[in-house]
């Protein structure tokens, strides 16, 4: 699946995007984020404070229980500050 990071989350992860194939137990956003934290200290730092992490699957905001599939585009970012 394609992961995209924005703003300070991107800077902490150290990547703008990456393609990953998570293990089989990763079936929803929650388990994806837990698994991502184990990938690098950057990932762990970026995802430490979950209250400021937002997730969109295929351009739609989703809650932590939302399922994720291998062909999804999953964006992970802080609360938005446009306007």
């Amino acid at each position, binding site marked *: 699946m394609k992961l*995209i990071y*924005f*703003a*300070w989350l991107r800077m902490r992860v150290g990547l703008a995007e990456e393609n990953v194939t998570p293990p089989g137990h990763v079936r929803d956003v929650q388990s994806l984020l837990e698994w991502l934290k184990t990938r690098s200290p950057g990932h762990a730092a970026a995802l430490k404070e979950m209250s*400021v992490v937002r997730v*969109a699957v295929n*351009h*739609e*905001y989703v809650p932590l229980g939302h399922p994720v599939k291998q062909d999804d585009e999953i*964006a992970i*970012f*802080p*609360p*938005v*500050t*446009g*306007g």
Partner: protein
Amino acid sequence: MIRVQQEDFDVGKEIAALSEGRREIGGVCCFVGLVRDIAGGAKVDAMTLEHYPGMTEKQLEAIDAEAQRRWPLAASLIVHRYGRLEPGERIVLVVTASAHREAAFEACHFLIDWLKTKAPFWKLEDTEHGAQWVAARDSDDKAAARWVENTGSTGKVK
């Protein structure tokens, strides 16, 4: 109608284009967001707006459609810029036109409040203390929360 662009926009021309030949329009409300030179007490030299191409357009389209559904609008427009902007520069334009001014005002206010908490933009400020990502504000969440629809209600939540 929505547009996401790097270049500036001309407020007068956008309003004129939106209301051109639409003689049922009695009122046009618009909001223009500008880059301020101060943020949290620190001087701001410039700001860079990052966004999520694809999702930005989709979210703005949805927000615009929601305004059209909730208020009797003749026309509406959202233009949001991205990239590097200096103090005084325009960031965002919202225009709503309706036969009646109340609908134009409410929908315009709704659109800017709503997009501030939904459109995937992030501001990086170049301040005298270095580059800082702008933090989301509680007051923006509260402003947006006013517009959450109650069952059977379509207006501003009192």
